């Protein structure tokens, strides 16, 4: 299959030949990738391939030096993170960074600060009802939660803005096996309810097994793409990116 994700018409998120980096370091060297509405798409690749940089660039934290980023048909390449967020892209960065000294409930309130509508309160209650492990800790400080609980909290915060696309960077990082299952189940449930998901994961076999499609990046360029199954079955992908 061609390593070119730009051939999709009507994609929700569409990156074409995106070049981006930090100061003198060029990390993305012409990446093309498309995510259709309703999909779960994962990006895998070696450490330093540019996976996290891609999410940051989409989220307006880095200005692309070349290429195009379109979301729902609109060019968002030069938008700030706040504008990207308002357009319906949620982002959970690597390593989780909720407000450790605030309670779970306060974290959710902070997550809704962009909203002015009266339904914030009922949305927060709905999220707490949906994630019982957060509800039982609603008055506890986020910093005292386990890693898995913090990851769920981050996703809940992102969901408060009802994103059309949720981007998650290494949701399984540092989690024990049971929690990994819970976090992936949660992502699947979020997707079933209509949110498109784009994730970066080093737990690549697990991620591909739950994804509709996947992209493999290598040194800032597209290397492979296909359905989750195709990539899992591709001997070259297995050998070089899935650990055999």
């Amino acid at each position, binding site marked *: 299959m061609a390593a070119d994700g730009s051939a999709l018409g009507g994609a929700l998120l569409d990156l074409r030949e995106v070049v981006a980096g930090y100061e003198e370091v060029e990390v993305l060297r012409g990446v093309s990738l498309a995510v259709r509405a309703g999909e779960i798409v994962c990006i895998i*690749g070696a*450490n330093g391939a540019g996976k996290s940089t891609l999410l940051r660039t989409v989220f307006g934290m880095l200005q692309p030096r070349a290429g195009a980023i379109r979301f729902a048909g609109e060019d968002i390449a030069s938008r700030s993170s706040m504008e990207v967020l308002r357009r319906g892209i949620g982002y959970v960065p690597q390593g989780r960074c909720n407000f450790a000294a605030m309670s779970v409930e306060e974290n959710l309130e902070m997550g809704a600060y962009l909203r002015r509508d009266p339904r914030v309160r009922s949305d927060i209650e709905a999220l707490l009802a949906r994630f019982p492990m957060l509800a039982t800790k609603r008055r506890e400080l986020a910093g005292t939660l386990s890693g898995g609980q913090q990851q769920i909290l981050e996703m809940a915060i992102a969901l408060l803005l009802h994103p059309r696309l949720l981007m998650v960077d290494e949701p399984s990082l540092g989690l024990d*096996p049971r929690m990994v299952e819970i976090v992936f189940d949660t992502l699947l449930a979020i997707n079933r309810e209509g949110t498109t998901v784009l994730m970066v994961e080093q737990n690549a076999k697990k991620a591909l097994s739950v994804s509709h499609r996947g992209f493999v990046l290598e040194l800032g360029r597209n290397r492979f793409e296909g359905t989750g199954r195709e990539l899992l079955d591709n001997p070259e992908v297995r050998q070089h990116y899935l650990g055999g």
Partner: protein
Amino acid sequence: MALLEVRGLVKRFLGVTAVDQVDLAVEPGELVSLIGPNGSGKTTLFNCVTGYLAADGGRAFFRGNDLTTLPPHRVARLGVARTFQQVSVFPRLSALENLLVFLQQHQEEHLLARLIRTPRLQRLEAEAVERARRLLELVGLTDKADAAAGSLSYGQRKLLAFAAALMPDPDLLLLDEPAAAVNPTMINQMKSHILALHRQGKTVLLVEHNMEVVMDISQRVVVLDHGQKIAEGPPDAIRRDSRVIEAYFGR
């Protein structure tokens, strides 16, 4: 006596007993994994053993030295190295320099020898650079040797920290989730290197949630839950242990 012997270790945080009367013995040359749910006390145990936290009870001995009374750098100089889940590097130094700095922190070279740069010191430095380059190659960072560590991705910093822990050629290596955020192919390379160290007679205590790593390379697995040791044995027995399945594996 075991190389590392932890006896009745206790650590409490604000009324929560994070490590609760844990006994653990690691024999010279053993490769042991410590597993358990998030929050079961694994990292806290590492912190108490390596001088980063003062224990509230119990002792930890390395070759007969009581580690619980020593600060981290004294523990390191006895031949104990560790890695951290939350990696920290010197962002403005290159990857190579980060490894050299790490080594320097563990050497007690006489100040005068440093000032006049004795031939012995120059030779040691050359050897250190050579060793650092080999370790960078091992973790796939050769082409990043001269890049500022701050420009590395999170996963690459993890790999750099793994290499740094190996710089002083420690006798006991405590690894805290070395495989997290690391690409599966590199994890395999890491696994073979840990096994190679084991064959050289090094002793390794590994905290890891990646069960492929734990089950493939460990001789023995110790399981913590709520700060207490709930099981201990060879990987196959641990995999089938009903208490471990309930507390950790799930499903």
